[in-house]
């Protein structure tokens, strides 16, 4: 049987709109060096590397090869995975399987993107079918807008509900020095009032109905690295390792026009599989904190229903009741989430890294529950509507 695996180190660059001072390889190196320092390891301790991003975002083919001198892959095993928005969690899962297999003891997972180097929407459109989809597609924004409008249509959710999610993410980001968006003006204003200001703002441009600027994630340059280690080593490296209790993913559709817009079925199925494996029966009660891949506001309503935190249509109530705020029963995205930083290939890995920080009690100003976090959930969402889920915990899994 496989080995138990824990996260023992995490490093990220400051997530910024443009990092002109470094090229891609140097950006990757920053995250790797930070993660190694966090775990007090050197690159010699690392047995294998997994890296991910999307080729057409930077226009670099064979990124695992090109980045070897910065990632630490010189004379090491390295593999690349690339699955759109889920890239970061797919990288994390790949690193997890490397260690769990017993073939490698300590594995470095890297996700990165320099969105400033291209037109992000243009690059995203290349993820779709050239004959059937590319001619009319409007990138991720349009793809998410249609999902939002269906959710509003089905459950009567409003623009204010969406804005409430955005407000939570941006308020949380103020506690995270690594986050890209720091909307200082929001400080000290109650969420209800902020929702009024955002919904009523004329500068808040409509991108694709119902999504305004405030509902979307930014375009970010950034990198992240997470170190996974096998039991036996993990306990020695980290005082409180973040154990991987379960991880799962589900594949759904290949053609965009096939997608079920009523529910996010992949995140639902993957969550179900993870909870079953980890013995979680009441997610809302048992899970202490979440780092969810929510690329736009309405995902923060609908997808938490799909994960199983509440019944269908009740997402808005959870938000307005403050359940998902920093001091709520289930804080979601203390880091500020994807809506505050989105270096696409790094984004889902940051969810895993941030969830690990919460378990390890190392999240600093964004730490929840006084560091008393037993279970933290991280998710990824990406192209072809994949759902990736990873559950981390303080106790070594059975």
């Amino acid at each position: 049987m496989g080995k138990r695996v824990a996260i023992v180190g995490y490093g990220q660059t400051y997530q910024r709109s443009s990092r002109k001072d470094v090229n891609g390889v140097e950006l990757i190196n920053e995250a790797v060096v930070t993660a190694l320092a966090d775990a007090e390891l050197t690159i010699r301790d690392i047995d294998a590397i997994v890296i991910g991003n999307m080729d057409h975002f930077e226009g670099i083919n064979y990124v695992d090869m090109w980045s070897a001198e910065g990632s630490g892959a010189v004379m090491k095993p390295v593999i690349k995975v690339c699955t759109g928005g889920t890239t970061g969690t797919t990288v994390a899962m790949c690193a997890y399987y490397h260690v769990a297999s017993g073939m490698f003891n300590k594995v470095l997972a890297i996700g990165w993107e320099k969105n400033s180097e291209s037109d992000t929407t243009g690059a995203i459109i290349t993820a779709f079918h050239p004959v059937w989809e590319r001619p009319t597609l409007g990138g991720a924004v349009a793809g998410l807008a249609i999902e939002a409008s269906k959710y509003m249509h089905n459950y009567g959710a409003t623009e204010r509900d969406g804005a409430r999610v955005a407000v939570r993410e941006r308020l949380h980001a103020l506690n995270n020095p690594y986050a890209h968006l720091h909307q200082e003006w929001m400080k000290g204003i109650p969420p209800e009032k902020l929702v009024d200001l955002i919904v009523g703002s004329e500068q808040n441009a409509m991108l694709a109905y119902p999504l305004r600027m405030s509902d979307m994630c930014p375009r970010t340059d950034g990198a992240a690295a997470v170190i996974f280690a096998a039991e036996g080593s993990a306990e020695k490296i980290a005082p409180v390792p973040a154990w991987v209790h379960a991880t799962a993913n589900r594949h759904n559709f290949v053609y965009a026009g096939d997608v079920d817009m009523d529910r996010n079925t992949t995140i639902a199925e993957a969550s179900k599989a993870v909870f079953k494996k980890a013995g979680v029966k009441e997610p809302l009660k048992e899970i202490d904190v979440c780092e969810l891949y929510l690329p736009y506001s309405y995902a923060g309503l609908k997808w938490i229903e799909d994960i199983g935190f509440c019944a269908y249509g009740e997402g808005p109530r959870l938000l307005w009741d403050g359940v998902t705020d920093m001091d709520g029963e289930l804080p979601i995205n203390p880091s500020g989430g994807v809506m505050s930083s989105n270096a696409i290939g790094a984004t889902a890995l940051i969810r895993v890294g941030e969830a690990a920080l919460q378990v390890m009690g190392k999240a600093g100003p964004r730490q929840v529950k006084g560091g008393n976090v037993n279970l933290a959930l991280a998710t990824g969402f990406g192209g072809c509507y994949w759902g990736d889920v990873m559950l981390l915990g303080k106790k070594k899994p059975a």
Partner: protein
Amino acid sequence: MTDWKDKVENMVYSGRIKVPYLWNVGKTGSRFLIAIRDNKEIWGTRCPGCGRVYVPPVKTCGECFVPTTEWVKVSDTGVLESFTVVHYSYEMQPRKAPLAYGLIKLDGADGAILHLIGDTDFAKLKTGMKVKAVFAEERVGSIADIKHFTPA
């Protein structure tokens, strides 16, 4: 049996991917390219671990995985370690075939630099021969500010 199926064409959809990119050179690389552009000088970085001098410069030595700490000016002449004369054409090539590439170890550097070889009879190229950088008249801050290398 049903001939309509034999009449179905095999269509091909001709398109392209044209996403515009603007790659950041970074601080380390910028300093290297600016020295060529402004002063026709070639600089590398030295690894404090293994002592290698990298040209073009690296911020981190891939072998030792430590940051380079020292800038070193190297010669604009060096040794041709390997070369090829290319006889085919495609659109990314900056000049018409036949064209030649070389790996040139500049005097004072350890790593070789990849560049074009020009202004010479390609039949006379030999590994181990001395070559010299020829700088472009108009320099803009790219690796093409070295026009090519030519036998010294």
